[in-house]
């Protein structure tokens, strides 16, 4: 096979692997953003963090009803603690995602992408 064509296929393979690995990394990140409390589960999103902050700013800090990821209501007893936890999980996970993403982007060989 022509050397240039061979090189092109190599690059195409690299791009396919990189693209798939980015998708897997996103899924790993998404799974870290699941938070459980009082038998309910929440997906931590900027919207949830903002809403919780608004609830606190309005002066409601105890026994507030939220609706979880499955549309079931749940009473959050300590809203401040809930806010602190989801913020921490969100920022830690997002930071970890950013670090791993940058690391992945810097890899130039398939064997490096999957750490062979």
């Amino acid at each position, binding site marked *: 096979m022509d050397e240039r064509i061979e090189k092109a296929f190599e690059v195409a393979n690299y791009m396919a692997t990189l693209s798939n690995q980015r998708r897997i990394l996103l899924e790993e990140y998404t*799974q870290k953003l699941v938070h*459980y409390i009082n038998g309910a*589960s929440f997906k931590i999103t900027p919207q949830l963090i903002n809403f919780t902050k608004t609830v606190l700013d309005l002066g409601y800090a105890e026994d507030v009803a939220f609706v979880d990821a499955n549309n079931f209501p749940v009473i959050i007893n300590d809203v401040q603690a809930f806010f602190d936890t989801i913020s921490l999980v969100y920022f830690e996970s997002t930071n970890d995602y950013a670090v791993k993403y940058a690391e992945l982007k810097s890899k130039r060989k398939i064997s490096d992408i999957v750490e062979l």
Partner: protein
Amino acid sequence: MTHGAIIFAQNSDKLDYIKLAVFAAKQVKKYLEIPVSIITDSPGWLTNAYPNHPFDQVVEVGFIETTQYKKFHDGALFAQRIQWKNLIRDQVYDLTPYDRTLVIDSDYIINSTVLKPAFDNHYDFQIYHNSMDLAEWRSNKEFTRINQWSVPFYWGTTFIFEKNLVTKAFFDLITYIKANWFYFRMLYRIEDTTFRNDFAFSVAVHIMNGKTNGGFAVELPGKMTYITDKDMLISIDGNKMKFLIEKKNYAGQYTLAKTTGIDVHVMNKMSLSRYIDGGLGV
């Protein structure tokens, strides 16, 4: 309330499901820290071949001679028809020793703690509908609805249920669907002639929801991440798994993929078996 996991393992003529179940159970204990029991028709093989098995309880079921066969691939270029014993999943309600049970297939490899808090949820029945194929190019529409005109697809591979009147009705319904499989297959336009738990579960969820989009089945956290039997597992190292994923339009060629800290349904059981035997799954 007691918590635990159940793995079904009925050996076929060509595949040692008990070997896979022993491995899967160790992963459950490592990450979820709950007792695991096995439901099997071959307890003798379990104790002889795997004397140090990790099972909390061994639940014996009678040997069932099945005539159901399924084509299993081992990578993109090889396939064989193997006996497929999947007809007792509906009995889990009566057979489980736990009040709240996680049921997984022997090829579902737990590599994270994502399911752990799901035991404390208040829901009767939690199961996966959403899924992610590790092959980016492959369509997962066959795992979205049981066919393009019909009801949402649910994975019978992994679910958590609490013993109560509602879930008892659900499993009774599955028994009824299984007994009248030809009728339900026609009614829901299922093309596959073999009985599949995924389909029976999907139909039963639909009926439990009053044949609407009700709230009986709650989504488990995360997604059902899977490789098909046309892909291969290379190795597992801690919570990292490496795979060869079938390439689009190039049969026999693969791309590499790696996961960290997510549970994966390894549908290529032969590859998983090779890895457990020691070495690589390729």
